């Protein structure tokens, strides 16, 4: 017999199920209950930097849109600071860097407005390219999927990013790069997420 280690085990994940909106976005489920729902304003009114829209769709293994997904975004501000005690500094009043996004039940399209994040501190040396961390839950997803969105117009920073460079299959890195477009004078980044198939998005065990 050896001594036993007295660690606890992490509570196992279970799917968020089809009715995740009741808990996390009750307005979308069809009723009004809280004074304010959380996660609707990622950057707040005082955030510096470029205002952007991010939009996309989540596609399943049959090529169909996933219409009941919920995404959470976590990002740094334009200076590369996270709104957290270990985030690297102070952020603008009202900048939270966290948001919750649900898909349109009819089309599966989702979108959120924020500011483009700056480069963040690297794990060991250097910096990470600007990116938004995404977490995806839905019916049929047994444990939340972690991925990262990078920006097409940051080619130089992306080429040096330690996480993108960790992906051995270079052509798979492209699944993490959002495409930049302009629409009605606004910058829009398109980021489609493929759960399966030839162009399956890279997901991380973080």
């Amino acid at each position, binding site marked *: 017999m050896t001594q036993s280690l007295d660690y606890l085990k*992490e509570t*196992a994940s279970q799917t968020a199920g*089809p009715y995740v909106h009741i808990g996390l976005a009750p307005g979308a489920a069809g009723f009004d209950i*809280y004074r304010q729902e959380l996660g609707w304003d990622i950057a707040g009114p005082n955030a510096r930097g470029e205002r952007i829209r991010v939009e996309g769709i989540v596609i399943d293994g049959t090529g169909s849109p996933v219409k009941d997904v919920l995404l959470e975004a976590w990002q740094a501000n334009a200076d590369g600071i996270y709104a957290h005690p270990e985030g690297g500094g102070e952020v603008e009043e009202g900048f939270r860097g966290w948001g919750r996004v649900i898909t349109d039940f009819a089309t599966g399209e989702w979108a959120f407005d924020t500011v483009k994040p700056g480069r963040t501190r690297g794990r060991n040396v250097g910096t990470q390219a600007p990116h938004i961390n995404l977490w995806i839950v839905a019916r049929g*997803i047994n444990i939340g999927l972690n991925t990262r969105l990078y920006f097409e117009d940051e080619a130089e920073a992306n080429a040096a990013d330690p996480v993108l460079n960790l992906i051995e299959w270079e052509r798979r890195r492209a699944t993490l790069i959002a495409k930049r477009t302009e629409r009605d004078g606004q910058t829009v980044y398109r980021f489609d997420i493929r759960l399966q198939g030839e162009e399956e998005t890279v997901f991380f065990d973080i």
Partner: protein
Amino acid sequence: MTKPGEYYQRDRMWHPPAYDKDYKTSVTRSPQYSLISLQNSISEITGPTFGHNDVDPLDNDLIKNYAQPGQSPIGERIIVHGRVLDENGRPVPNTLVEVWQANAGGRYRHKKDTYLAPIDPNFGGCGRTITDENGYYFFRTVKPGAYPWRNWVNDWRPAHIHLSIFGHAFAQRLITQMYFEGDPLIATCPIVNTIRDKAAIGQLIAALDKNATIPLDSIAYKFDIVLRGRRSTMFENRLEGN
């Protein structure tokens, strides 16, 4: 001098795998390539913070938070309480816990739920709270009913409450479900059984807690939640470096 470092890696043999043919919806929604293992950076050791401005005192009382004045929802009145801990056994204070559930008849207040059991006019089915300095939380609600779902022809979900917990880092983010001690539907549920380890399933079953009941009012269940623990770096692992 020790500095907190990164979070313990997730035990992917303990969590359910993405793909499980008996939970049919997972078949086309499970990544087929392996996850890319990432050591924590600042992006993972940070995460959103919440305060008492974000929630109202009544938000954790599902018996009252949607009921008409003077009325209350139908069902067994219960208290669900416990602590949010990390794998080191330390409390996780000031973290947001959100819950959602069906009513006592097994029906959700959701425009996509068409089960024939009735909506309860006095029950919304969601709540939220922030753990106290000891990681403690509680909700008051009614016990949810079992409900049928389309998977195999005759599948029924055991009574359950969905929970969403943040912790202090995006790496700790977790959604799970809580079941009730003694429910015979737990053993045959394909969603429960996406988890392979019996001990991991046991950790999702709340125990009847008669010490926490309110006599002549509400019965209680205790449900502790464990989030990922964090390393103390006895040796520099260069996470903080730049």
